[in-house]
């Protein structure tokens, strides 16, 4: 417990709750609740994309990877940025001309088949569940560290705040929180990077030399160590390149701007803001190695931090700027997490209340009030389930968890969405069978792979060798979807 850090922290949380309250007065209709009424400018939406994307997983997780193994931090950063080409160049234009709020709307616009709603709503829930767990693990660690609360209580506190956010604010609130937070995070990144450089006389050479000296692996930190085979590397690359475009809550963001030109601009702004931040993070990342290693206040062993390496940027803030900077850093990360988990919960709530309840169960005859009620109940239930799961994954690097959820998206929602946009012969049956096959294959790959089979279940060797199953599950989903579509009757686009 320390007073300065906690005061700063509470101020930021109060500000973001204030934004939520203000926004809640403006989100009366369903369109506003889900998509902020399509009223944002390209720049604002780009900042919101950035806020959404530069989640706690990015900031804590990637800095953690730098601290643990050096250059792999940059490899993961580039990978994360490489999800944008598909969005900016290919999907931004197409997505705008289809659908209304959700991934499911986009699919059913092309393929008039209600069973697709069941597939896409289920895929949304499964993908975002894992994505959300990653964020909650980060949030839990943060609160545990800052307030000295137990991990379980930390998560409960976050859960309550998150539900307040979503239930009252909707998309307008999460969007504004994302925009404000993107600004905070950028400012914080610059302060940390300048602080690191100042420590080493503004010499990149001195910084890198110090990092090599301090890290137990020495010169090896300048090499990538995370990709031991070409297969593993390509699987990771594929995951990053197409996974983000399959994330349901990202797809929703293309509908918060008024037209296709603003949609493209927002994606381009996001690419620049995100890419730039990753460049700044190179300094922060090597800074954590050079500054934190060997300092008994933060490190408990060689390349090992107290409370885990996900804590690296927080300790760096403390080392550079004492309790005040620590408080600001913690609050920024926390606001990040709160906003991201709110957006995730919202996407899941939309999938279940709008797609499953509204369109499948009630066949479009529900009132807006009924749908919002189901949506809010879903948010509550989803929050509880993810909190319980987060306890299991407490010690995983949170970036690895995020990329794992991307591998599920890359194998299920992305192939179907992509073919719906660019392949006229796609049929509803093909989409349903192919998407489901890809999803099941990816889930099986993750469970049998190193992340769950070894790290959670405790077996010695994984049955599936790679951390991310995309190299198998993505082509499988594409091939099955296309084969089933080709084998069906030739019906043209609208079946």
């Amino acid at each position: 417990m320390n007073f300065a850090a906690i005061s700063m922290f509470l101020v930021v949380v109060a500000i973001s709750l204030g934004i939520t309250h203000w926004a809640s007065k403006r989100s009366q209709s369903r369109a506003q609740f889900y998509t902020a009424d399509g009223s944002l400018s390209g720049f604002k939406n780009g900042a919101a994309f950035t806020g959404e994307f530069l989640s706690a997983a990015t900031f804590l997780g990637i800095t953690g990877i730098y601290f643990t193994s050096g250059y792999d931090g940059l490899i993961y950063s580039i990978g994360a940025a490489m999800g944008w080409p598909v969005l900016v160049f290919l999907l931004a234009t197409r997505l705008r001309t289809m659908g209304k709020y959700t991934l499911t709307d986009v699919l059913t616009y092309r393929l008039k088949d209600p069973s697709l709603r069941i597939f896409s709503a289920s895929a949304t829930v499964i993908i975002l569940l894992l994505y959300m767990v990653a964020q909650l693990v980060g949030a839990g660690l943060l609160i545990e560290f800052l307030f000295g609360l137990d991990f379980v209580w930390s998560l409960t506190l976050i859960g309550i705040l998150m539900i307040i956010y979503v239930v009252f604010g909707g998309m307008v609130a999460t969007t504004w929180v994302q925009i404000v937070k993107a600004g905070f995070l950028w400012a914080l990144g610059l302060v940390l990077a300048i602080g690191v450089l100042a420590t080493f006389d503004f010499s990149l050479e001195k910084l890198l030399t110090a990092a090599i000296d301090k890290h137990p692996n020495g010169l090896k930190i300048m090499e990538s160590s995370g990709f031991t085979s070409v297969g593993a590397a390509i699987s990771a690359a594929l995951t990053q390149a197409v996974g983000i475009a399959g994330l349901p809550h990202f797809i929703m963001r293309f509908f918060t701007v008024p037209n296709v030109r603003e949609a493209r601009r927002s994606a381009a702004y996001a690419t620049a803001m995100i890419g730039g931040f990753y460049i700044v993070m190179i300094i922060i990342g090597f800074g954590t190695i050079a500054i934190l290693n060997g300092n008994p206040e933060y490190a408990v062993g060689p390349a090992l931090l107290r409370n885990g390496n996900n804590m690296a940027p927080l300790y760096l803030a403390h080392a550079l700027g004492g309790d005040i900077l620590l408080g600001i850093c913690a609050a920024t990360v926390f606001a990040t997490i709160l906003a991201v988990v709110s957006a995730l919960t919202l996407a899941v709530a939309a999938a279940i209340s709008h797609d499953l309840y509204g369109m499948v169960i009630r066949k479009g005859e529900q009132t807006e009030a009924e749908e919002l009620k189901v949506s809010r109940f879903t948010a509550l239930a989803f929050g509880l389930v993810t909190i319980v799961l987060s306890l299991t994954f407490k010690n995983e690097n949170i970036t690895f968890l995020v990329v794992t959820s991307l591998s599920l998206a890359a194998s299920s929602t992305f192939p179907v969405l992509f073919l719906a946009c660019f392949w006229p012969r796609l049929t509803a049956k093909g989409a349903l069978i192919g998407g489901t096959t890809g999803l099941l294959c990816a889930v099986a790959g993750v469970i049998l792979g190193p992340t769950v089979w070894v790290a959670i279940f405790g077996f010695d060797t994984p049955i599936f060798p790679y951390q991310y199953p995309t190299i198998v599950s993505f082509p499988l989903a594409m091939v099955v979807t296309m084969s089933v579509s080709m084998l069906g009757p030739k019906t043209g686009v609208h079946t």
Partner: protein
Amino acid sequence: MSEESQQPNTLPGETPAGKTAARIKGHLTVAWIATAFTLATYLLLMISVAVKPSFLAQTIAPGGALTLGIVGGVLIILLLIGVATAFTIWNNKMDSDA
């Protein structure tokens, strides 16, 4: 429904009229090239770290600490930002001329 049934065998976002269709097809070709180009640089990077991690760990200047991997990584990110910006400006300009 009626609007869609008037446009058989086209993807949403495309109109069947000859000139516009050709224009959109041209846009799409550029979009595919931009995607393939940026993703190819990433794929090369990943294959390089998998096959020979020591290659990118070479220093730029003898005795220095700055490596080929860091400089190359920064360049790849800048390249992505550059291509995305150029493409968006171009594509939006084309749209407003249409």
